[in-house]
């Protein structure tokens, strides 16, 4: 081992060494920070899930709990480390004591200690448990407004009188009880007997919530409780697995975080690879000279391995240190976003894991450039150019091992073998696609006759044998496509979950508006409200195959067994797009007796429906044959009405129908509006979702901040790496500048050629990256996250513009110094 040689090599390639170390640092920072933070976020999500459901374990039934389940629950309640709270929720008519008015309300009787998790905030700021005493009621603000009552006055529930003592200002459980008719009234469970509303013949949601101190016991308790349930009647679930609408968002958020960490790792790897490759390319000549002087291939490899090891060690140290520092600052960064109880901070495990992951990434991405050292032939000293090519013997085996190792790493990060393998397969396919694309884009360049000399020179120099164009473009395009993918996926997550709760989202839904009430209703609400016709029907068969209702009903979530709401209209809704079919109802006339129907993608998937399939509906006793004419998708969330089956107006106009109205009402006018509607049209039921919207919006906003932070962190890291790798390849272009000057070109010409060459390079990489990123993001959104995809072309093109500016200006900047200096100095150094 020659220490002097090592030291001199290191000194001679300072800038590339710095870039390499920077990449190692970035990859470790992001791995350490994201991994430990992801754990904290998961903790936060678990806590949100509990807050949403009010306990760790929820037992639910519409009947009194069966004896075995009740006994098990009672036994658990007696154990140390387990708290239990029971609730009874039902609808009833709340009345003013003077009998002047009454209101359909949602009553929730709760035991002391409710909620075990989450909050019920009161307008007075007092503690919920302390305020809710027997004989007292805590009500929603809208109840006071609609019954014209005030805090301190009395309310009749059943035959008992209650004093209203406070107003609910926020309930963290609200998003789970989404569709609630009527405002909330909390009473103490001790008043149940006095109210006499819960007995045989009542419809009540019985719930028992458990708080389990030892989180590890939750699953086994759930399992033992589930053993005791009456099938189809009683339900026991853990808060984290309970099927809430917000759950999918949580899952997607965690997955996105994992994705970002993998992406950042890959980006950093690309950075390492390109900086090292650039360094070695620059050293190629000295390697050849060394080889001519008798140094063996393994001598070079040994020293460079050590060099990379030293650089990696420096990078690792700095990376872990900065990662922990960054992670510590999350506490301040996300103050108020994460629950207070969560202790942020890296553990020794994070550090070790970070080092382990770092070694794998470094090993994989430096293997290829390093393995080329051995292949440098002494003859290279006489050649002006030459690419050592891939290592021949055992090379592919090693690459294969590397890929397997990397796949393991990705699987570990994504915590799912199948998805991890899909992902790695996808990434490899993308790299292959990029290489092919670059080849396809470069090929025509050689055949095009270009008149302008600078442009011709620029184009030809890209194609010159031995030029690293292909490598540079593939590297750049890969990095760029990863960056764009992060951006696009983040944007689509945001669009699906966050932007679908905009300030102007409807907050009052009106059901059961009759056909002859349409006009009156519209006049009454005095606004432009779209009314959606609803025709109830069952789907009898698909292409003659009867729907197996028994089997369908067993499916989790939605099924084809239920009655559907059909509607008619001639155009797409604002948030809809056609995914299949040229128009909503097709242009071709259908056979007699057949009508066209446009199907929403989600129900199309449920029943494997395709264009041209024949669906048989039963509309309240009357069969209707319809042919699928198009498949629609939608990009808004649950606060917007949507319909699985849309028909042309003329085909369903005569069918019995009611209308559904979605209104946006100002908060202050909400109660008045509900009263006005119900007084004029007592049959219309109103569902006020403003509280739900606010509560959901809060959670989404909070988590979106976290998403945005990590996406921008990753994008920033990626941009730094991108800059570094462009910088690392500047040597190759420097040489060109010198040759042009030697051949008599003036600075302006050289600049022109450089500008054009860099422009072509940037456009090529950017073009490939856009194609790949769009395809990749579409796949991720569609298949892994299961959300609608919006291509966002404008920001994508903006990113292309930015890349072009970056590559061109960096390319030009790095050659400016040469333009100003005499070429002879450079030549003297190089030859």
């Amino acid at each position, binding site marked *: 081992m020659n220490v002097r040689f090592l030291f001199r090599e290191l000194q001679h390639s300072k800038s590339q060494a710095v870039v390499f170390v920077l990449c190692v640092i970035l990859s470790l920072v992001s791995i350490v920070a994201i991994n430990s933070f992801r754990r904290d976020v998961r903790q936060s999500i678990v806590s949100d899930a509990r807050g949403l459901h009010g306990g760790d374990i929820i037992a639910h*039934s*519409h*009947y009194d709990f069966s004896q075995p389940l009740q006994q098990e629950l009672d036994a658990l309640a007696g154990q140390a480390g387990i708290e239990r709270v029971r609730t009874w929720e*039902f*609808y*009833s*008519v709340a009345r003013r004591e003077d009998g002047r008015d*009454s*209101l*359909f309300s949602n009553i929730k009787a709760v035991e002391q200690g409710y909620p075990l998790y989450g909050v019920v905030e009161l307008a007075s700021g007092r503690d919920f448990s302390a305020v809710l005493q027997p004989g007292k009621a805590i009500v929603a603000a809208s109840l006071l407004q609609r019954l014209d009552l005030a805090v301190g006055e009395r309310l009749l*529930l*059943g*035959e008992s009188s209650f004093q209203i003592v406070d107003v609910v200002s926020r309930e963290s459980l609200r998003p789970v009880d989404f569709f609630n*008719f*009527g405002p909330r009234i909390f009473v103490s469970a001790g008043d149940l007997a006095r109210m*006499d*509303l*819960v*007995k*045989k*013949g*009542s*419809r*009540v949601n019985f719930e028992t919530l458990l708080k389990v101190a030892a989180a590890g016991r939750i699953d086994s308790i759930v399992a033992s409780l589930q053993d005791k349930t009456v099938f*189809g*009647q009683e339900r026991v679930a853990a808060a984290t697995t309970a099927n809430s609408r917000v759950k999918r968002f949580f899952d997607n958020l965690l997955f996105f975080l994992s994705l970002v960490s993998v992406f950042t790792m890959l980006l950093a790897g690309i950075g390492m690879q390109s900086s090292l490759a650039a360094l070695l390319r620059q050293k190629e000549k000295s390697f050849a000279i060394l080889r001519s002087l008798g140094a063996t291939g393994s001598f070079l490899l040994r020293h460079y391995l050590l060099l990379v090891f030293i650089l990696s060690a420096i990078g690792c140290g700095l990376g872990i240190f900065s990662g922990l520092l960054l992670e510590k600052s999350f506490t301040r960064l996300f103050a108020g976003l994460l629950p207070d109880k969560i202790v942020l901070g890296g553990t020794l495990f994070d550090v070790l894991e970070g080092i382990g992951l770092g070694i794998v990434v470094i090993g994989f991405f430096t293997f290829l450039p390093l393995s080329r050292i051995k292949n440098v032939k002494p003859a290279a000293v006489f050649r002006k150019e030459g690419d050592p090519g891939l290592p021949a013997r055992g090379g592919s085996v090693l690459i294969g091992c590397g890929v397997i190792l990397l796949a393991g790493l990705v699987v570990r990060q994504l915590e799912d073998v199948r998805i991890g393998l899909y992902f790695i397969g996808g990434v490899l396919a993308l790299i292959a696609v990029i290489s092919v694309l670059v080849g396809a884009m470069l090929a025509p360049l050689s055949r095009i006759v270009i008149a302008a000399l600078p442009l011709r020179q620029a184009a030809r120099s890209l194609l010159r044998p031995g030029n690293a164009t292909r490598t540079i473009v593939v590297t750049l395009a890969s990095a760029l496509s990863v960056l764009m993918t992060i951006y696009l996926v983040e944007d689509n997550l945001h669009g699906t979950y966050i932007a679908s709760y905009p300030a102007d989202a409807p907050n009052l839904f009106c059901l*059961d508006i*009759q*056909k*002859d009430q349409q006009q009156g209703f519209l006049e009454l609400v005095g606004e432009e409200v779209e009314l959606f016709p609803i025709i*109830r029907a*069952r789907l009898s068969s698909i292409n003659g195959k*009867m729907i197996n*209702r*028994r089997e369908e*009903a067993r499916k989790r979530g939605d099924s084809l*067994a*239920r*009655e559907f709401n059909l509607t008619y209209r001639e155009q797409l809704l604002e948030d809809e797009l056609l995914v299949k079919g040229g128009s909503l109802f097709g242009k071709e006339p259908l056979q*007699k*007796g*057949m*009508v066209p129907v446009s199907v929403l993608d989600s129900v199309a998937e449920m029943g494997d429906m395709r264009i041209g399939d024949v669906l048989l509906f*039963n509309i*309240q*006793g*009357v*069969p*209707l044959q319809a042919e699928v004419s198009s498949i629609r998708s939608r990009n808004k969330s649950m606060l917007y009405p949507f319909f699985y089956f849309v028909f042309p107006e*003329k*085909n*369903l*106009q*005569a*069918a*019995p129908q*009611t209308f559904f109205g979605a209104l946006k009402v100002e908060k202050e006018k909400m109660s008045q509006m509900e009263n006005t509607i119900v007084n004029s049209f*007592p*049959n219309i*039921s109103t569902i006020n979702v403003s509280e739900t919207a606010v509560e959901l919006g809060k959670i989404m906003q909070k988590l979106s901040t976290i998403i945005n932070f990590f996406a921008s962190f990753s994008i920033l890291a990626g941009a730094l790496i991108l800059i570094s790798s462009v910088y690392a390849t500047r040597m190759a272009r420097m040489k060109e500048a010198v040759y042009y000057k030697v051949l008599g070109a003036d600075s302006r010409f050289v600049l022109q050629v450089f500008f054009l060459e860099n422009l072509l390079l940037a456009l090529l990489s950017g073009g490939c990256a856009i194609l790949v990123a769009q395809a990749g993001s579409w796949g991720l959104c569609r298949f892994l996250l299961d959300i609608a995809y919006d291509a966002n072309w404008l920001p994508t093109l903006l990113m292309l513009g930015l890349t072009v500016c970056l590559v061109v200006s960096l390319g030009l900047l790095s050659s400016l110094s040469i333009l100003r200096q005499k070429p002879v100095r450079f030549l003297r150094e190089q030859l």
Partner: protein
Amino acid sequence: MAKAFFVVMFIICMSVSGCNREPDVAAQEPGEPMKTIVAVGDSLTAGYGLDESEGYPALLEEKLQAAGHKYRVINGGVSGETSSGTLSRMEWILTLEPDIVILETGANDGLRGVDPRLAEKNLRQMLQILREKDVVVVLAGMKMVWNMGPEYVAAFNRIYPELADDFDVVFLPFFLEGVATQSQLNLGDGIHPNSQGYKKITENIYPYVLEAIERREG
């Protein structure tokens, strides 16, 4: 089986121009015209969560035909429908040319706390229309869940017997007699009968339907 029969016996064409229907007479046996019972109602009639063949209209049809009554029973139930909805589709129901209508509606009015007077007004109008069209009616009475409060429950439960008296219709006092609150006869939601529940309902309603047939056939 019942469904297949239903489809064959009641092929109705929907033309592209709208919902025009022509009863298919080809499938009927000559000389023995099949009469029509339309079961009008909400999810309790529609057979929420079950196959149509398990709902009471299908079971009733089977039972009637087994006993030699040439009647088909059309399931005209719409889940979630209130009495206002039922009233506004009376015209549609009448196009089915029913000989007998089993009218079961109003439960959703009660479950949503709609003023019982509205349900009564709607039912009164429906009964009036059916009387004018000379349709024999079996009125299925409904009782409201107790948690709505004694005052509301009393006001609601009064509607059906009063209307039955006023219109002299065949009256089944409580559609869910012996089924409501029985967990083994209902789905997990505690309110919709399961297939066992519908067997019981069919047994309950059968004598009243026979009475209606008697009235129809004079």
